[in-house]
């Protein structure tokens, strides 16, 4: 027997198919198809958790995704563990381990329960009030305390071994929800030939038909009709039916995200299967058939285990065959709860009483109750409950006062009516409208191509729902151009039409009471907390929500929002629509990070870009650094060397012999066409029409506002062909910038742009022996200093493969940059290295490159400039043409602020103590004794130990820097103040003899 409370002959599960699981270490038996909630209830377990703030014992409140109480920790093994799983949603599988949360040392005896007694100190907004002062206590006392107290479950510590999948899908009509409404709409849409996707969050379709056994459709029981309809839909080629699949987010232009739970219900899932799959669906039309959610009643101590929603009890009985108690009370403001009592009574459960706070319940249900011999107390309310770990009795009193009568019960079912699930509608940016007659927020103004049908649209009555849904399904499908099929007709019948419903606090929990009448179970918010928030000045529902945390838990207030709103409305004496509903946000129910990121984790989180020379660098023992997505060789340590040692050696070797460097990451753009020079004239500050083919020039690119955007060397290969290089990080945006101007401002120019960054491998060979190294390898180019001076470019061959050979330098040494097609990169490098190594050259990395360029005062855009630096500020005025009448940035450079005296300018800094290396980013002041706040003159942009200079060197942006050459300034640090002298930026070979040698 799978639990003492399983009633033979009830429910739809097969008694022979059992599964075993543990809850807090104790083994229980379940049936296949059970949820954790139904299996625990079958075994008489109502106490499943402790509440968030007060640690009150809590049970199972619902039978669906709205569950705020029964949050559990579910594990398959040590790594496959998930906290905060909703027990009514998680299906049991054989061998599953379930633990309760937020309790110590045990669920039935929880020390944290003291919070319940201390609750006067935990009123709404207590964080804001209690943790105000002293300020010093925040870090050491308050924050650790809050962090320890916050949250229910414990996050797993091991890496998630499961994998997750993601796919895109397209359809004519997406139907969210597989109850009567969704199935009817999908059927009508599918009959036209439209491509239809139907999704439902439960293991089987049916929605309310899971519990509502009084329904028949076309002569079949409602649930059987639902399964038959799903089977029929699945058999159609144009339909996809997805169960265990929640539509959790509705985004722009009918883009809807679904999550399909693929293996969480399986005892031994196939390892090839993803645990969950995300569907990103673009639908031409969307039909929302998301149903509605029953609300609880708000009264004193309404949170004891054993107190649950009436529809939940009905689901446990009619679907799972479980009686939630032996002597059950009902407290309701809606006819719907009566049907739960009828079903239980017929199954042999004692109904202690139906307490109806209305004076006039629906006549049909009242008559049926009398017929079944159930005591109904109309105009009465439950004003309190008793029971330590499970409800044991309820106090019932006539509305408006009078003595209370205690009725013993072991379960209490409640219903305050139904809240339409307008979550997805609201996420679609549709505007809800308040229907005062029914007291519901319903879809009002639509923002996207969607329609709501059934109870989420406020449609009452089975046949009305069916007809509305069939019509919507056909309408939406026809709107997408599907013309097949005819009219679908369905006939539904059910026992009772429901009336009633209420929102807000019930009897005994009204204004001026201090009882714990829970509105939001998951965040422990009571009716009195909402009133307190209003009294303390929170008058907007958004403020009330944040002050009390009502509706801010992971259930997003599926039960509590409307009650909270009604209570605020009463205290504020303002109508509900005037207070407004808080905005619904995706996701509808919690979604795992695994599903959202899918395969984008580990190595696939962000692609790594490797140059064609990467393998060689690895073999040489390079340490790599990340530059954007690139992996660049940083330095090449030899045995026993620190980074500092290696960089010093590399710096010396390049200046004394030669060095080989991978410059392949530099951005490269081929600019071709009869107007190429004119186009570059507009893009760069320099003049390009005067550049002869075979020559190169350093160019500066500005934004229209006059600030430096990028720089690089441009070689002219022919009258109509330029080889443009950009900074490593700037390549994509420079290409975009050029395309933008070419397409939209200068479309008359005949120019074609092609990104060639990844087509070329670039090997820089720099140093006094550079020419000697490459000379024997080069064919067809005279690389003598006379024929091939600094800033030249030629096309020819190296090692038998085509090359664009540049004579250029970012080190200040005579040097070459060998461009070869990417696939030849490594073999050419090996040939170069075979000559370079015996000549005493070394391979050097980006760190040495940085030091060597700083020794020459070459700037790095983005390090020495920050988007507020002009070419003049960077001592690059020589590169700005004075003859041109237009280039991007020409007008920006003349702005009053950009020509003002005293702008920050790039200068060199020499520390008075040559051994002190400044920190990059350090601030610079004129007077170290000035009281705080000191006047900051600027900051250090680049700073290194220069082995070649035998001292530290630095570059800095300093206000009025050019006029301060020779001045002593100060760099205040936490432990000392460093004196520096302002210098020019060239620290080595000021005449350029090495460069041109």
């Amino acid at each position, binding site marked *: 027997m799978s639990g003492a409370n399983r009633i033979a002959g009830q429910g739809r599960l097969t008694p022979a198919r059992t599964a075993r699981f543990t809850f807090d270490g104790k083994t229980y038996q379940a049936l296949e198809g059970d949820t954790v909630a139904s299996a625990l209830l079958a075994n008489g377990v109502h106490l499943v958790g402790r509440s968030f703030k007060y640690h009150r014992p809590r049970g199972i409140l619902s039978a669906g995704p709205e569950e705020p109480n029964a949050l559990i920790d579910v594990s398959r093994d040590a790594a496959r563990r998930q906290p905060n799983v909703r027990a009514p949603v998680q299906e049991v599988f054989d061998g599953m381990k379930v633990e309760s949360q937020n309790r110590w040392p045990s669920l039935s005896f929880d020390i944290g329960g003291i919070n319940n007694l201390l609750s006067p100190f935990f009123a709404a907004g207590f964080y804001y009030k209690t943790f105000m002062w002293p300020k010093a206590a925040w870090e050491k006392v308050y924050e650790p305390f809050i962090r320890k107290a916050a949250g229910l479950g414990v996050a797993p510590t091991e890496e998630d071994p499961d994998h997750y999948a993601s796919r895109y899908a397209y359809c004519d009509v997406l139907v969210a929800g597989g109850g009567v409404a969704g199935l009817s709409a999908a059927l009508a849409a599918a009959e036209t030939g439209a491509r239809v996707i139907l999704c439902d969050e439960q293991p089987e379709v049916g929605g309310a038909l899971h519990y509502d056994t009084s329904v028949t459709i076309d002569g079949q029981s409602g649930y059987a009709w639902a399964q038959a309809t799903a089977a029929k839909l699945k058999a159609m080629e144009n339909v996809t039916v997805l169960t265990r699949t929640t539509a959790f987010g509705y*985004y*722009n*232009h*009918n*883009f809807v995200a679904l999550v399909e739970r693929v293996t969480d219900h399986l005892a031994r899932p196939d390892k090839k299967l993803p645990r969950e799959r995300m569907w*990103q669906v*673009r639908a031409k039309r969307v039909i929302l058939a998301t149903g509605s959610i029953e609300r609880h009643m708000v009264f004193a101590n309404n949170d004891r285990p054993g107190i649950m929603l009436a529809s939940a009890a009905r689901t446990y009985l009619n679907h799972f065959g479980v009686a939630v108690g032996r002597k059950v009370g009902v407290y309701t403001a809606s006819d719907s709860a009566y049907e739960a009592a009828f079903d239980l009574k017929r199954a042999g459960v004692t109904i202690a009483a139906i307490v109806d706070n209305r004076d006039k319940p629906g006549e049909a249900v009242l008559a049926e109750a009398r017929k079944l011999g159930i005591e109904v107390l109309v105009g009465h309310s439950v004003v309190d409950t008793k029971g330590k770990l499970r409800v044991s009795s309820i106090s019932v009193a006539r509305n408006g006062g009078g003595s209370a009568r205690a009725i013993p019960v072991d379960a209490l079912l409640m219903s305050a009516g139904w809240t339409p699930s307008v979550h997805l509608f609201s996420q679609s*940016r549709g*505007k809800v409208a308040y229907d005062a007659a029914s007291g519901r927020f319903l879809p009002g103004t639509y*923002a996207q191509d969607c329609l709501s049908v059934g109870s989420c649209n406020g449609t009452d009555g089975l046949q009305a729902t069916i007809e509305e849904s069939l019509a919507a399904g056909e309408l939406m499908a026809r709107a997408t151009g599907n013309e097949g099929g005819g009219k679908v007709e369905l006939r539904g019948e059910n026992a009772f039409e429901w009336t009633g419903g209420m929102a807000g606090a019930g009897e005994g929990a009204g204004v001026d009471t201090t009882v714990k009448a829970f509105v939001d179970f998951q965040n422990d918010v009571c009716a009195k907390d909402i009133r307190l928030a209003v009294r303390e000045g929170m*008058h*907007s529902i*958004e403020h009330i929500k944040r002050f009390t945390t009502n509706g801010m838990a992971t259930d997003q207030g599926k039960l509590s929002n409307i009650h909270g709103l009604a209570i605020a409305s009463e205290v504020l004496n303002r109508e509900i629509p005037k207070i*407004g509903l808080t905005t619904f946000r995706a996701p509808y129910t919690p979604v795992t990070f695994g599903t959202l990121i899918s395969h984008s984790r580990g190595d696939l989180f962000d692609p790594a870009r490797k140059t064609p020379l990467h393998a060689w660098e690895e073999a040489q023992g390079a340490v790599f650094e990340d530059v954007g997505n690139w992996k660049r060789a940083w330095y090449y340590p030899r045995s026993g060397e620190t980074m500092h040692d290696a960089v010093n050696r590399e710096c010396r070797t390049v200046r004394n012999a030669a060095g080989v460097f991978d410059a392949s990451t530099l951005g490269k753009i081929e600019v071709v066409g009869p107007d190429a020079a004119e186009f570059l004239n507009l893009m760069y500050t320099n003049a390009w029409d005067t550049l002869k083919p075979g020559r190169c020039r350093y160019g500066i690119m500005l934004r*229209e*506002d006059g600030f430096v955007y990028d720089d690089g060397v441009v070689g002219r290969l022919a009258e109509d062909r330029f080889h443009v290089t950009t900074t490593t990080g700037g390549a994509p945006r420079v290409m*975009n910038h050029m*395309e*933008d101007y070419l*397409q*939209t*401002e200068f*479309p008359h120019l005949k120019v074609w742009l092609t990104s060639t960054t990844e087509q070329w491998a670039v090997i820089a060979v720099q140093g006094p022996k550079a020419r000697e190294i490459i000379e024997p390898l080069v064919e067809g180019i005279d690389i003598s200093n006379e024929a091939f001076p600094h800033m030249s470019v030629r096309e020819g061959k190296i090692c038998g493969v085509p090359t664009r050979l540049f004579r250029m330098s970012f080190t200040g040494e005579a040097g070459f940059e060998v461009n070869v097609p990417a696939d030849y990169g490594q073999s050419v490098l090996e040939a170069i290295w075979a000559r370079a190594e015996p000549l005493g050259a070394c391979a050097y990395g980006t760190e040495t490159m940085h030091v060597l360029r700083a020794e020459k005062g070459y700037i790095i855009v983005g390090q020495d400039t920050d988007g507020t630096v002009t070419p003049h500020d960077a001592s690059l005025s020589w590169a700005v043409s004075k003859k041109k*009448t*237009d280039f991007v940035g*020409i*007008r*920006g450079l*003349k*702005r*009053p602020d950009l020509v003002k005296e005293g702008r920050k300018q790039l200068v060199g800094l020499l520390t008075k103590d040559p051994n002190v290396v400044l920190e990059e980013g350090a601030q610079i002041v004129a007077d170290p004794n000035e009281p705080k706040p000191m006047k900051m003159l600027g900051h250090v942009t680049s700073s290194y130990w220069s082995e070649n200079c035998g001292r530290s060197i630095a570059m800095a942006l300093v206000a009025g820097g050019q006029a301060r050459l020779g001045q002593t300034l100060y760099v205040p640090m936490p432990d000392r103040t460093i004196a520096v002298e302002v210098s020019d930026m060239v620290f080595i070979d000021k005449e350029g003899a090495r460069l041109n040698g």
Partner: protein
Amino acid sequence: MLLIYCPYCEEERSELEFRHGGDAHIARPTNMADITDEEFQEFFFLRDNPKGLIFERWRHIHGCGRFFNAARDTVSDKFVMSYKAGEPKPDLSGNAPATEKTVETYEATEGTAK
């Protein structure tokens, strides 16, 4: 995620393929070097940030690579139309979308601040 019609590819494609390019129909002055500070300010810095219809540039960067213009409602994110770069700004005054009041301000809920 937006669905955007590229007037060059002549089909709707996902937002992932596009990059936004700021306001459309701001022509770069042909006498750039000679304009006044006020003209430069107008050209480079000042934008309307309208609530409702906006004309803006998009680039189909992971598609055909072309820049084009589109008219979009900034409240609903609905695209009214898109058209090729260089084409004149369409007159949409007839079907300008109604701009609803969607932002809940203190004044709207509580009256004028005292």
